[in-house]
């Protein structure tokens, strides 16, 4: 067991866990922040996506011991960011979600995309979102909502 000081959504947090514990499970069970989801555990689906030092990160494969002092932002906090808020609003106005389980990860990936590429092309979208699974298949509306969010952020 080791103690780690983390910054999550701007707040200092301290956890004492096995060093190999993936950040996903530290967030979900030690910090009780269940917005970040478990979908596969092997970084195949993106449901676990958070931002670490601004980089979209698949928390299910990153042990908490490798986070260091890099700040973490989760779906619970991304709404504080104007890009995050715009994406969430677009998701609602375009009626994207179905079961919704993958959408935390989709949104976190989209925010990472839009922060770097505010006006993404279809190719940008396919490449950046190409690793996120939506089993319900909401991809068509995800594309539309990304474009809507991008418009909002002009």
């Amino acid at each position: 067991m080791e103690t780690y000081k983390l910054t999550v959504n701007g707040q200092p947090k301290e956890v004492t866990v096995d060093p190999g514990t993936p950040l996903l499970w530290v967030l979900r069970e030690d910090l009780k922040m269940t917005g970040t989801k478990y979908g596969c555990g092997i970084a195949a689906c993106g449901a676990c996506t958070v931002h670490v030092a601004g980089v979209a990160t698949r928390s299910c494969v990153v042990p908490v011991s490798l986070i260091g002092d890099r700040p973490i932002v989760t779906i619970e906090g991304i709404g504080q960011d104007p890009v995050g808020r715009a994406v969430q609003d677009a998701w609602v106005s375009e009626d994207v979600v179905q079961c919704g389980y993958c959408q935390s990860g989709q949104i976190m990936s989209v925010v990472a995309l839009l922060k770097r590429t505010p006006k993404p092309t279809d190719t940008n979208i396919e490449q950046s979102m190409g690793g996120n699974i939506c089993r319900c298949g909401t991809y068509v509306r995800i594309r539309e909502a990304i474009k809507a969010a991008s418009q909002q952020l002009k």
Partner: protein
Amino acid sequence: MTAATNSANDLLLSRRSFLRVSATAAGGLIVSLYLDLPLAAQEASQAKPKVYPPDAFVHIKPDGKIVIQVNRLEFGQGVHTALPMILADELDADWSQVVSELAPAADVFKDPLYGIQMVGGSGSIAHSFQQYRELGAKTRAMLVAAAAEQWNVPSNQCRTEASVVRGPGGRSAKYANLAVAAAHMPVPETVPLKKAAEFRLVGKKIRRLDSRPKCDGSLKFGLDLDLPRMKVALVAHPPIFGASPRSVDDTAARSIPGVADIFEIPTVSKGTAVAVVADKFWTAKQARDRLRIDWDLSGVERADSSQLREKYKALAGTPGNVAVARGDEKALDGIAATNRIVAEYEFPYLAHSPMEPLNTTVRFDGNRAEVWAGSQFQTVDQMAIAEVLGLKPDQITFHTEMAGGGFGRRATPDSHVQREAAAIAKRLTGTPVKLVWTREDDVQGGYYRPMHVHRVEIGIGADGMPVAWHHVIVGQSIVAGTPFASFIIKNGVDETAVEGTADTHYDIPNFHVSAHHPTVNVPVLWWRSVGHTHNAFVMETLIDELATRAKMDPIAYRRKLLKPDAKKLRAALDLMEEKSAVWRTKLPKGHAVGFSCHESFGTGVACAVDVSIENERPKIHRVTVAVDPGLAVNPLTIESQFQAGVCFGISQLMAKGAITLKDGYVEQSNFDAYTPPYIIDAPAAVDVHIVPSTEKPSGCGEPPVPVISPAVVNALSQLTGKRYRTLPLVTV
């Protein structure tokens, strides 16, 4: 979004008091919800209540919020919004004040047609449309009656809108203020319902109620549940279904701090599994990984996909149990080989793999239990848990959690996951236990869409139309051995294996369909659209092949062959033809259009797809889909379901879209080897068109799935000249 306890100021008495529960001798659950009928009278009726009391479904709170109970699981299909819409419309409720909750397991929430609380068969709206309309209308009538009484005016001089009753002389009263009085009004036996023109919500594009919390991390799914002192359990399942451990060495596992207990539990396939209970998921996973289990694999059948394929192909060459025998069985004999199509189709096992892996939380208190599960089969599961715990179902409070997908996986006749959870909870009386299946458990855990082989022999007439059709279908029965068998298996044929062929809307003369249902040691289950998943593929690719041979336009061919009264399919076909004309007549080089039409669960669907081949895979540029679902309750939900449903449907085409077994072992374990569609596999655009209709609503959850795979391969056939009869599409 689960049922919450209500304050005493609510319309009704608190949930505990109005849900007066009594058990019948048979162990069934009866919930007496009438406030004004004596308990004894309700105990007399054992069957599902034919009349649904509004107070079980609607709570009008003093602050104006209107809480509506949804008698189905919400797992993406949108009932959480659509059913309340229906009720709220008849109620003339202020939609902005409507709160939707998923009802717990209770008799009153059972499906009016099937008599169990369930979601499946795309039946939610179809079966509960009338029900929810009546509930809304009755509640409205009681509110009006309360106002009319207070004002001493006739009810028919009152009207309602947006949660307000308006009476003569400018009087008005909010529903919130009438609620208590309304609760004492008699529940009308019958009420007039709105005419279609009076709908304010039904028929409109209404956005989902659950979007925001699903976008900000606040909505809790079953897997997110956290209770005080809760433990997490993982189960080491036998690697071959039905096996048991010869020995278990749990020394290394137990040495991990946080492990609470490790013990064996039975599995429904008559084997034994090993449960690991710990303080957290990661602890449990570490411990389970360190178990050294020597599995006794003697005496369990080792299913093998290659062997099954050969066995099924051999069976397909022989007639099976008759599903359809229409016309002259010998008509095919007189047809020359050059005028025949002989086709063999192969379909693999498919896993549902909803994004939220299976999970159930149970707390057993000795003489009561509490359960939280995103279940498609609440009352079935409740009974199974009761059996394991030695309780009566009414001693179990069963909360319905929002679920991260299901596609049929969460509707298990044997309630196997719930039974595991109950068995574990029983060992830890008083402690809530959350059983979690990992993705590996999910992919390897069975309950797949069965493997199938079809053998079809078609005799073709001079005009290119079929004159005889022999069709043999081989595949495990989904319902055999379950309580559903008695009404789904007829003459030895499991209807879920032949639906889409046996009930075809094509007017095929001399039509013979039969089925073989081998018994295989692999649990199987209904996968979104069930038999239509393979039957529609076979039918719609064969129709396309026939049209090509006849040098007829594929749409015209279908029109000619469809039965005259295939009203929904014809309407969908017409609308699809119209809406796709703009693009399919101007396809770029290297693109082809593919068509299909199929009716399932009462809904007719037709689609056209624009496909090219890129990087040796089908690239779907556009899908135009037309649907006749009867009355479209929420066109936005329907549009969503079809846009996304076709993206789900192409799972069947994915190169790694098959579950295979080798010598008893499932070869895939996660999304790396069993790969669903990603955004790059999905169509770039899907436009959905709804046939205007006033017929009663049918379903939209499953109907998008069967049409897409055949349409895509029909387009590929145009491009490559090949016919595709084996799924998944490993090569193009």
